[in-house]
C-alpha cells in the first residue's frame, strides 16, 4: 500500500515532468528579474510563442509518425508572402485565410505524397522541399518584402495578428489555443489519431492490422502543412508585412518544442499538451534572455544549453 502510493506519486510527477520544468523555470526567472512575472510580460511570452507553438503542433503529426518535417519554415515564408500579396489586392479576409491554409495543405500534400507513396525518407524529402518552397517564395516576391497597405482588408487581416478580444486576449494566442484544442481532440479522441500513433509505433503491425498506412501518413503531413500555412498567415498579420526570408529555420524551434515536450523522434509517442508546454519553456528562455539583455552571442549559447538541460531533465525523470 505504502509503496503503491509513492509509485502513484512518482507516476504523476513523471507524467507532468514538463510542467514541473516549466514551473521551475518560472520560479527561477522570477528570482532573476522582477520584470518577468508581470501580466504584461507573460502576455508577451504567449504572443511570441504562438507562432512556434502552432508550428510545433503541426510538426508533432510528422514526428509522432516517426518522421519529420523540416520544410515548415519555408511554408511559413511562402504562405505569408501569398497572404500579404492577397491582402494588398484587397481580397476578403476569409478568402485570404482559406487560400493560405489551402497552400499549406498543398505543400504538406507534396511532402506527404513523396513520403507515403514513394517511400522516401521524410528528412530528405522535406529538406528538398524546404529549398523548393523557399525558392518559390523568392521568385514570387522577387526577393522583396510584400508590405500591406492601409486598406480595409489590411486592417482586418492585421487584426488576426495583433487584435484583442475582451481587451486582453490577443488573437494569435486565441488562435494558438484553438489549434491546440482541435489538435488535442484529433490526436486523442479520434480513430485517425489512434491510427497515427499506431503507424508511428509499428508501421508493419499497423499495416497488417488493416490500417491504410499511406493515407494516414499523407493526412498527417497535410495537417502539418495546413498548420504551417496558418502560422504563416498569423505571422504575416502580426508583423504587418511578409519578408521573403520569413520563417527561416523556424522548423528547428518547432522540433525543439516537441522534443522538450517529451515527444520522441522515434515516433509513436508524444502528447500535444506537453508540446505546448515545451514551446512555452523555450519561449520563456528567449524572453528572459531578452529582458536581461544578454548579448545575442551568449544567447545563442545559453539557448542551446538550456534545451539540452531540458531534454536531459526530461529523460532523467522519465527513467
Amino acid at each position, binding site marked *: 500500500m505504502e509503496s503503491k502510493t509513492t509509485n502513484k506519486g512518482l507516476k504523476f510527477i513523471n507524467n507532468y515532468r514538463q510542467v514541473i520544468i516549466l514551473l521551475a523555470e518560472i520560479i527561477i526567472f522570477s528570482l532573476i528579474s522582477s*520584470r518577468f512575472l508581470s501580466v504584461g510580460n507573460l502576455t*508577451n511570452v504567449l*504572443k511570441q510563442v504562438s507562432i512556434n507553438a502552432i508550428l510545433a503542433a503541426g510538426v508533432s503529426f510528422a514526428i509522432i509518425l516517426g518522421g519529420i518535417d523540416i520544410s515548415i519554415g519555408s511554408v511559413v515564408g511562402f504562405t505569408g508572402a501569398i497572404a500579404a500579396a492577397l491582402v494588398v489586392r484587397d481580397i476578403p479576409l476569409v478568402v485570404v485565410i482559406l487560400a493560405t491554409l489551402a497552400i499549406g495543405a498543398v505543400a504538406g500534400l507534396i511532402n506527404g505524397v513523396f513520403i507515403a507513396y514513394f517511400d522516401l525518407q521524410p528528412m530528405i524529402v522535406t529538406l528538398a522541399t524546404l529549398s523548393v518552397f523557399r525558392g518559390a517564395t523568392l521568385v514570387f516576391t522577387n526577393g522583396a*518584402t510584400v*508590405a500591406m497597405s492601409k486598406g480595409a482588408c489590411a486592417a482586418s487581416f492585421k487584426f488576426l495578428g495583433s487584435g484583442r478580444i475582451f481587451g486582453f486576449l490577443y488573437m494569435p494566442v486565441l488562435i494558438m489555443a484553438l489549434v491546440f484544442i482541435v489538435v488535442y481532440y484529433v490526436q486523442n479522441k479520434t480513430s485517425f489519431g489512434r491510427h497515427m500513433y499506431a503507424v508511428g509505433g509499428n508501421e508493419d503491425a499497423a499495416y497488417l492490422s488493416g490500417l491504410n498506412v499511406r493515407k494516414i501518413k499523407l493526412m498527417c503531413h497535410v495537417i502539418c502543412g495546413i498548420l504551417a500555412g496558418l502560422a504563416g498567415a498569423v505571422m504575416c498579420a502580426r508583423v504587418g*508585412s511578409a519578408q521573403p*526570408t520569413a520563417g527561416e529555420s523556424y522548423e528547428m524551434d518547432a522540433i525543439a518544442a516537441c522534443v522538450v515536450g517529451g515527444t520522441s523522434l522515434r515516433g509513436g509517442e508524444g502528447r500535444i499538451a506537453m508540446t505546448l508546454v515545451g514551446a512555452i519553456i523555450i519561449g520563456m528562455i528567449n524572453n528572459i534572455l*531578452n529582458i536581461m539583455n544578454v548579448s*545575442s552571442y551568449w544567447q545563442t549559447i545559453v539557448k542551446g544549453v538550456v534545451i539540452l538541460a531540458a531534454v536531459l531533465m526530461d529523460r532523467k525523470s522519465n527513467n
Partner: protein
Amino acid sequence: DEKQDLTLGLMLSDNTNQFFSTLEDAFKKAAEDAGYEVISLSSGNDAAKDVTNMEDLLTQNPDVIVYNPVDSDAAGDAVAMANDAGIPVVTVDRAANSGDIVCHIASDNVYGGEIAAQYIVDQLPDGGQVVEIQGQAGASATNERGEGFHNIMDDNDKFEVVVSQTGNWSSSEAMSVMENALTANPDIKAVFCHNDQMALGAIEACQQADRDDIVIVGFDADADNLDAIKAGTQAATVRQLPALMGETAVEVCGKIAAGEEVEASIGTEVELVTADNVDADATAEEEATTEEEATTEEETETTDAE
C-alpha cells in the same frame, strides 16, 4: 558611347536581402538598356560560396566583374582569382581588403549608423534609454552599423543603450525583442534598428503597447518605411541608394571595357530621411532610378566602407 558587346559578372553577397535585390534589379535593367549581358550570382552570405561563385564565373569569361563580397577580409582570394584571369574587378557596397580593384563604389554603413545615432541624440535633448535591434550576429552590416551607432552613443553620457539584441533582420523577431524591451524598460525613448524590416516590427510592437512617443530609426529607406515616416509612425531611416549603386556600377563597367579612366573610389550617398525630407527625397530616388543621367559619377567622396 558606341554600343559594346559586353558580358558583366555580378556577384552579390545575398540577394534575398532587399537592399541587394534592388541593387541587382537596377544593375540588370541598366545593363539591358546598354545592351550588355549579365551573369548574376549570389552567395547567400557565405564567404566560401564567394570563392565557388568566382570560380564558376571565371569559367564563363566575363569582361568585367562587379563584386559585392560577403566579407571584406575574405574577398582577397576571389579577387586574386579574377586578377590572375586578367578580368577587372569593381567592388560595390563592401570593399575587398586585398587584390587589385579597379574601382570601389562605396556606401558607408558605419557612417549610416553614426547619422542614425546622431539623429536620436538631436531629437532627445534630455537623453534617455535607447534600444538597438541588431542584424544577424556576425554579419558585416550588423557589425558596421552597430559600430557607427555606438561611436556616437557610447560617448554620450545622457544616453544609455539598455537593450542590444538581435532581430536577425526579421520583422517578427524584432517585434518580439521590442515587446520584451518595452516590458523590461518602460522608460525607453528611442530605438535604432539595423534595417527597416526590423523597424517595421518595432513599430508594430510600440503601437500595440500604445507607445507612439518612441523615436524609431531604421536603415535602408524601404518604401514601406518611407510611408511610415510620412505617417509619423517611424521617425527616420538611413538611405543608401542601392539602385543608384547598381546603375553606377554598369556605367563604370562600360568605361573600363572601353579603356577609359575611372575613379578609384566612387561614393554614393548615405543620408538620413526624416519627415522633413521624405517627400523631396522620394522624388529624388525616383529620378535616380528612372533617369540614367542622374548618376553621381562626379562625386569623388573617398570614404571607405571598411
